């Protein structure tokens, strides 16, 4: 499994990357492997406002459904509709398959709410 060092990770197995004040978010290699072949994504509406820790999306495989949380407060500015019908891309390229982007309320909140690759790997190894 692969955990790029230039990304941040959450305790709920999302990966994210700050681009200015926009947080790009998907699910980690560990998460896609645990869920198996993904077949449906429930995207949030663009414009929706989340508090830190809110459930923002759902990813569903043949086996199970899992919530995707927003680690910080913000507003949805884009969803990756290109994954509709191509949900398997999340399995094959989890870090290229972002789910949604949120304009974060406070950029400094991201670091505290997420883990670096080493800390995340240590967490999932437990």
């Amino acid at each position, binding site marked *: 499994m692969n955990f790029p060092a230039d990304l941040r990770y959450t305790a709920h197995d999302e990966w994210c990357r700050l681009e200015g004040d926009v947080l790009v978010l998907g699910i980690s290699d560990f998460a896609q492997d645990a869920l198996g072949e993904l*077949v449906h994504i429930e995207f949030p509406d663009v414009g929706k406002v989340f508090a830190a820790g809110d459930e923002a999306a759902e990813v569903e495989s*043949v*086996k199970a459904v899992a919530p995707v949380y927003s680690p910080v407060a913000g507003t949805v500015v884009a969803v990756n509709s290109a994954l509709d019908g191509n949900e398997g891309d999340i399995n094959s390229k989890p870090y290229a398959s972002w789910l949604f982007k949120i304009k974060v309320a406070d950029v400094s909140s991201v670091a505290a709410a997420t883990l670096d690759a080493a800390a995340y790997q240590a967490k999932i190894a437990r």
Partner: protein
Amino acid sequence: MVPFAGFEMPVQYTGVIPEHLACRKSAGLFDVSHMGEVRVRGAKAEQALMWLVSNDVASTVPGQAQYNALCNDKGGVVDDLVIYRIAQDEFLICVNASNRAKDFAWLVEHNPFPGEVVFTDEGDDWAQLAIQGPNAVAICQKLANVDLAPIGTYRFTHGTFAGVAGCIIARTGYTGEDGFEVFIPVAAAGPVWDAILAAGADFGIVPVGLGARDTLRLESCYCLYGHELNDDTTPLQAGIGWITKLKKQGGFLGSAAIEARKATDDKKLVKLLIDGTRIARDGMPVLFEGQPVGHVTSGTRGPTLEKSIALAYLRNDLAKPGTRVVVDVRGKEAPAEVVANPFYKRS
């Protein structure tokens, strides 16, 4: 691996979808040793089973298998079973793993000829491996010491399989594909698994876990106990009226209740083809014009169809093919249509 009825079983080996598609296109190997087996012996064994189960057991001949429901006195289903007629006075019943103890106790308790007809729980004596798919017959023929071609659907033979004597080789299954289920004396089962994988390597065989076992049966609209079948719902409601012989001589345990409930039972099992990719899961409400009219019993994305499919109990008046309903998927709407035919039927 997940615990299942006292067994540790794999949900998948490589992935639900590739395993499913391999079974449809070439062959799949399933370890279904968790299934229970009950031996029935006695001169009145046929008579006993005619009372205990729903189908016409008396119509079978040795070497024939038959699908049956075991019903309670309220007309609900205790379990669904396959009964293998070994001899005129001997049968082997294959029961669901999760119902093994319940079924055995039920059969013994309701045996109309105690002392004359003897039930023996052989669940610990048998392993069961299923080889299913278009290449299954060719693979099995490499391993069996008997000619398999003459064995028709729902027929079986005794034979030596992969060098193991005393196996039951049955042309039955739970996938919608052609193939065999082989009952193997339990101590010899491990090497047989390996022998099947080796014999099937050139035929594209893959091991298949519980996940694809469920998607395969669901595409073919086979009932699963605990989902479509339960202690409260009659076999008629579940759409297995074809094994429910209400008019057989003397009836059967539960037949009077099933007959009586025909007039008042207000829901039946339907097949739902769902728009979009949302997946309906067991227990989700089904709505018609905003009102709850039933619930989903099983649902998945059918890997062969690449569509979202489900089975659901709906109000009788809405069970007509073409009816449009909505599944409430965690508060989101998944529009769906009642369809007449199974989602998959092999050509």
